[in-house]
């Protein structure tokens, strides 16, 4: 009936009419008691009557689909509401500071084996798309089964799915396998090597290189046996693929790191003839018959320093820039300095570390480029200190390298050394230096250094009228000693020596307020014990 009425209404009463006799008798009677002047009025009255008649007698439709799964049991217990609710406060913090606080918050929940409260679930799900992908595994750990249902509604959760550990190695993509292998190397390096050996022969050249790079980044002396076994697989062949040479170079570098490896011994034997003993040239040397040992490199290819040996044994190419390395031998020496443990050189040069360093930074390893003397082995020495985390070498190098080269050495030096060095060098507000010193660490600064950097930043902003990079503020929120907040308070209340509102407000906006907020939040997160 209603369908027919709609049909009539669509075509219009000029073209079609509706027969009232199709209506139920009661409706016909009601309609009859309200006469109309014209057929349009009559039709509209009738339609209204039928519409309300239907509405009054309407019954709800029945659901015939499948009801969603209800999870009675969750994976973990819910976190205390106050810990869970910290998410809201973290979200409100400027994005510069947010991710670090989120990391702390997630790690606390995961360590406590707790799930977030439903009240925060939606905030987290909505925030997810604005977060880096590294947070995904953490999100999955704290939302539980119900949270996963919501996440599946909001986002394409399938793209989040990772293979279970037991399948990753067999079926995963290279990126997944690489992550898995890296993680395993951190927890059980030997097991990682054993796993790699099970599939080594089926791996492609590119994949092999990727896994060798992981081994290089997490080298252990116990890797030597595996590396010695595989070294021959990448032996030099004419027209070899680039990956072949790169794999050989990685393995050679790794074998040279261990003085017990046969490859190291063999290299040592090859190098020994080039250490030559000479009579000293100074007055004292002549008087006491002192002798010095130096490294004599050939000016042209010989039995060891030649293109074929270097390429086939070590994966070293010829010198890329003749202006810097006048001979190939000098370039290959630079490569070996990067690769061999630095102790090798003092032993054979019969010098201590500083003397050896001085030796490599002076003639004959100096070239003149654009009227300036340049120590061509300096970069290799810095790389060696970084690679072997050789603190003594790094400290010695710090005294002789240029200002711009110092941050790369600071990365391996202990935080306490860095703090003193930054104060001494007046670089406490140098962002590159700060990042080099502390960027890789999670340890808080000492109270003394915290006070120093706060004082410096305050003076810089309010007295010298300089805009400090807000990234220094970000670093401060991560590393400042929590007890230094009272010092910050005193700075805030001390009379500023500037009248410039913009500098003071910059200091307040990017330093004082976020520092208070972030340190307060991180302290509150850390103070939540498991039983809270």
């Amino acid at each position, binding site marked *: 009936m209603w369908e027919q009425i709609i049909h009539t*209404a669509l075509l*219009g009463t000029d073209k079609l009419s509706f027969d009232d006799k199709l209506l139920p008798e009661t409706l016909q009677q009601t309609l009859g008691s309200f006469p109309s002047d014209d057929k*349009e009025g009559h039709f509209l009255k009738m339609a209204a009557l039928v519409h309300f008649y239907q509405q009054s007698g309407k019954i709800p*439709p029945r*659901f015939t689909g499948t009801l*969603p799964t209800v999870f009675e049991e969750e994976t973990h217990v819910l976190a205390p509401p106050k810990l869970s609710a910290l998410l809201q406060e973290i979200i409100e913090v400027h994005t510069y500071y947010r991710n670090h606080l989120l990391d702390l918050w997630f790690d606390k929940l995961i360590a406590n084996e707790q799930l977030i409260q*439903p009240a925060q679930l939606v905030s987290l*799900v909505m925030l997810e798309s604005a977060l880096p992908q590294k947070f995904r595994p953490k999100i999955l750990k704290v939302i539980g089964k*119900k949270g996963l249902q919501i996440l599946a509604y909001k986002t394409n959760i399938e793209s989040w799915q990772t293979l279970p550990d037991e399948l990753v190695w067999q079926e995963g993509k290279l990126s997944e396998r690489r992550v898995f292998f890296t993680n395993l190397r951190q927890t059980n390096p030997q097991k990682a090597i054993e796993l790699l050996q099970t599939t080594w022969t089926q791996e492609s050249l590119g994949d092999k290189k990727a896994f060798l790079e992981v081994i290089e980044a997490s080298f252990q002396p116990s890797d030597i046996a595996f590396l010695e076994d595989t070294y021959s697989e990448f032996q030099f062949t004419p027209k070899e693929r680039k990956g072949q040479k790169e794999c050989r170079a990685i393995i050679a570098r790794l074998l040279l790191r261990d003085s017990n490896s046969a490859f190291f011994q063999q290299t040592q034997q090859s190098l020994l003839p080039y250490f030559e003993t000479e009579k000293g040239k100074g007055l004292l040397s002549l008087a006491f018959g002192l002798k010095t040992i130096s490294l004599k490199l050939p000016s042209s290819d010989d039995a060891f320093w030649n293109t074929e040996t270097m390429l086939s044994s070590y994966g070293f190419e010829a010198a890329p820039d003749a202006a810097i390395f006048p001979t190939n031998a000098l370039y290959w020496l630079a490569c070996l300095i990067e690769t061999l443990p630095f102790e090798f050189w003092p032993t054979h040069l019969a010098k201590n570390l500083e003397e050896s360093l001085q030796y490599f930074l002076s003639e004959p390893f100096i070239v003149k480029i654009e009227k300036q003397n340049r120590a061509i082995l300096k970069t290799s020495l810095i790389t060696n200190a970084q690679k072997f985390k050789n603190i003594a070498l790094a400290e010695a190098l710090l005294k002789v390298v240029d200002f711009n080269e110092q941050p790369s050495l600071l990365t391996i030096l202990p935080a306490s050394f860095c703090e003193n060095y930054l104060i001494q060098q007046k670089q406490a507000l140098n962002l590159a230096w700060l990042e080099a010193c502390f960027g890789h660490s999670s340890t808080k600064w000492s109270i003394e250094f915290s006070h120093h950097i706060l004082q410096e930043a305050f003076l810089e902003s309010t007295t010298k009228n300089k805009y400090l990079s807000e990234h220094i503020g970000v670093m401060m929120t991560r590393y400042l000693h929590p007890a230094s907040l009272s010092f910050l308070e005193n700075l805030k209340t001390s009379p500023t020596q500037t009248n410039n509102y913009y500098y003071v407000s910059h200091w307040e906006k990017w330093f004082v307020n976020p520092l208070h907020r972030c340190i307060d939040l991180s302290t509150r997160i850390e103070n939540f014990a498991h039983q809270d």
Partner: protein
Amino acid sequence: MLFFQFQKPTPTIILNLTEQSVETLAPDAASLKAGKALSNAAGWVTISYNQRVLWGEIKGSGSKPYRTQIDLQNIAFKCTCPSFKFPCKHGLGLMLAFAKQKEAFTQTDDEPDWVKEWIEKRTQKAEAKSEAPKENTSADEEKAKKSKEKRQNERLSQVEGGVAELRLWLKDLIRTGLIQLPTKERRFFEQTAARMIDAKASGLAGRVRTLRDLDYIQNDDWQRKALEITAELFLLLEAFKNLDSLPPLWQLSVKNLIGWSQSPKELLQNPEAERIKDIWMVLGQHQEEAEGIIIQRNWLLGTATDRTALILNFGTPFSPLENTILPGTIIEAELVFFPAVVPQRATLGVQKGFVSELSFELNFCDGWHEVYTKRSQLLRQFPFINDVSFVIENLRLVVENQQPILCDQEGFFHPIVPPWEETKLLNLMAFSGFQPVTMAGVYRQNGFLPLGIFQHNKYILL
């Protein structure tokens, strides 16, 4: 989310504000953000409260700290800052700080003079508001009466003109067929709506605009909806045509639908108006903007009387809403109802304050069948009734082809009103976990608008 117990009565606790309820008071997102930045109690010079008022001082850009005060009994703000926003960021910040860190506030009945002064003024004003209007002389009264009658007659004749025009428009539409509607330009509807506005029949203009706003492209359902709107509108015009023969309450209700407005001020001064004292749950709030007017709807439920009420607030971009109701809270108040065939709309009379814990039994519907039956009874009383609030037990959220629906235990379902905010849907998922819950909401013709759920002795606002 808002939480409060509703089992044990503890009248000594005056207020249980949550951040979510305070956020609804913000005039805009920027004010809310600024307010949140000031919501740390430590940032305030002084912060105190008592049962009636909340006050604090905060350092601003001026030489003296700003003084901010909030009337907790009848929500109102005052601040000495120069902001033109209402409430300002200081008012919001103070209230948010109270919601988050109540323990940081000093509880004292010893209010400073500047607080006392303001509260006294407000009390006097409220008393004056509820008093009967001043008695005029008989000559003045006669003059005012004549003038009012004249205005009413003028308006009536204007509306009658508009109604006649609209009747013709509807008849033309139905004669030539609704099939032409998708091809009509916006102007076709807008011209008629504008004519109704000129004829002082804004309610009719609104109904013409619903016809304009139908989705003629994506959905074939427009055919049914267009006929329903057209037929209902015609019936309303017929009711107006026979206005004199209708009972007085019907006359009022029909006139309201046509566009006669009702004044809360006059209502409060009317001694014959229906007044109901109760402890009211503010089930939820919904705000929408139409033709430059912001309409805020607040649905309340009387916990002792089981009576439902709708409080409307209106605002424009230039005159913000006077927001005095916090969704999710329980208030002890007297509501004054506008006379109607089915009285639903009310205004806040005397408010005694907030109740944070309460024990009461609500008359929940046990499923959609009961809701449909109750609605039929209301339709029988007044066919133009639309929004009706209900509390329904054991509703389960199901999402079928991206369309959320609510299933009851008997297997009946009703769709959620489209478009519903995604965050609210996700909130419902998060709190219910797809399990059956007791839900408060508003039944509309095109779907159910969920407002909140009862869970573990708490009311959670969606």
